[in-house]
C-alpha cells in the first residue's frame, strides 16, 4: 500500500493517548499545516461513512474516539464505572473555570457553603489543579482547570464555555 499523509496522521492519532496538536502532527509528518488540516478533514469525512470511530477536536488537539451511537456496545465491553460529577462538584468546577485562578476560600464565599470536599474530589480527578499561590497571608493555593477538564467535557478550549456575566446575561442564554 502506498503511504499517505492521511494514513500517517491516522496512525499517530490511534496510538496517542492524548489529543495531538496540529504542531505535533506537522512535526511528525513533516507536512505543512494546511496539508495536515486538509488531511484531518479527509479523515473526519471518511470516518463518517460506516466507521465506529470519529475524529474530534478536543483539549487543543485532535483525537480519535468512538461514536456516540455505539456507547452501549463499548460500555458493555469496557464496563466503565460511572464517574459522573455531582451537582455540587460541577458547581465548584464552574466557579473555578470562570474565575480561575481562585482560592478555596473564594470558592466558599461565592457558594456560601463548605466546598473542601468538592475541591478535593476535583483535584483527585485531575479536573482542577494548583496553578500557583496567592500572595496573601497563608499563601493559599490558587486553583485552575486542567487539560483533563477540557477533555472531560469535550471542550477544545476555555472559550467554548457558555458566557456567564451576572444574572441578566444568563437569562438571555438560558432562555
Amino acid at each position, binding site marked *: 500500500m502506498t503511504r499517505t499523509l492521511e494514513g500517517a496522521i491516522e496512525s499517530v492519532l490511534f496510538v496517542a493517548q492524548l489529543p495531538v496538536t496540529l504542531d505535533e502532527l506537522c512535526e511528525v509528518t513533516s507536512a505543512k499545516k494546511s496539508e495536515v488540516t486538509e488531511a484531518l478533514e479527509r479523515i473526519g469525512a471518511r470516518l463518517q461513512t460506516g466507521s465506529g470511530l470519529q475524529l474530534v477536536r478536543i483539549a487543543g488537539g485532535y483525537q480519535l474516539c468512538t461514536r456516540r451511537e455505539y456507547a452501549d456496545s463499548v460500555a458493555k465491553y469496557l464496563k466503565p464505572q460511572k464517574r459522573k460529577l455531582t451537582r455540587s462538584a460541577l458547581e465548584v468546577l464552574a466557579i473555578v*473555570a470562570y474565575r480561575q485562578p481562585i482560592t478555596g476560600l473564594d470558592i466558599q464565599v461565592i457558594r456560601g457553603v463548605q466546598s473542601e470536599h468538592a475541591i478535593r474530589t476535583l483535584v483527585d480527578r485531575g479536573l482542577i489543579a494548583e496553578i500557583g499561590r496567592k500572595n496573601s497571608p497563608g499563601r493559599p493555593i490558587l486553583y485552575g482547570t486542567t487539560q483533563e477538564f477540557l477533555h472531560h467535557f469535550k471542550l477544545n478550549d476555555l472559550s467554548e464555555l*457558555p458566557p456567564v456575566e451576572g444574572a441578566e446575561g444568563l437569562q438571555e442564554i438560558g432562555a
Partner: protein
Amino acid sequence: MNRKSAPEEQETLTPGGIAVPPPLRIESAAFTGSLATLFHLARDGRIDLTGVPLSPVCSAYLEYIRTTEQLDVDAAGAALLALAYLVERKAWALLPIADPPPPQELPELPEPTAHEFAFAVDTLDEWQRERGDIFFRAAEADGVYELPFDVGKVTAADLARAFERIMERARPVDVTPLAKPRPSLQEVMASVLAIARTTSEALPLEAFLPEDYTRLDAVFVFLAVLELLRIGTLTAELVEGDVRFGLKGGQR
C-alpha cells in the same frame, strides 16, 4: 472502685488548669485502669467501649459524691464530664451503623449560592453526559505501543514444530566451561540475518544453524528468529506444511 482504693498522689489539676477526674478505677474484661485513662483512650478511638461496663462506674461515681466529705467540685465536675462523654460514645457505638450518606449527593445548596453559574453548571452536566457516550483509547494502556506482528498463516504450532525438530538434532551443551562467552541474542540475530541475506528463498530453521550445534545454539537461533519476526525483518511462510523464514520483501 472508689477513691479510697486508688493512689492518692494524683493531682486534680493539670499544669494547664484542666481538672482531672477523681481516680475512679475500672476493672473489666476490656479495660482496667482509671477513669481518666479510659476517657483518653475513648477520645482517641483506641478502645472499644462496647466491652466496658459503664453502669458500675456510674454507681461508683455516685458513691464517691455521696461519701466524700470535702467534695472537690472541679474534680467531681471533670469526672461527670468524662462519664457523660463515655456514656454518649458508648451509646453511639451500640447504635446500628447506618450506611454513610453519599457525601457528594447531599448538599442541596443553601442560600446564598452561586446562582450566576447555574446555567454553566447545567451545561457542564449535559456535556458530561454527552462525553460519557464516547470513548477514547485507554489512557492507562500499560506499556508502549507496539505493532502486532503478522506471520500470515503460520501458527504458533508450526513454529513449535520447527523448534522441536532442531532440538532433536541438537547435542547437549558441553559440560566443560566454554572458553569464549556465548554470543548475545543480538549477535545471533545478526548471524541469522546474514544467512537470510545470502538467498532470496525462504529457509527452514535448520539453515540458520551450523552443522554441529548445541541445544543452547538451537534455543538462541529460535529466539533470534522470533525476535526478527517481531520487528518485521523476517517473514514466515508455510511451504508444504513446513515453516520457512525469509527476508521481508524478498531478497536484499
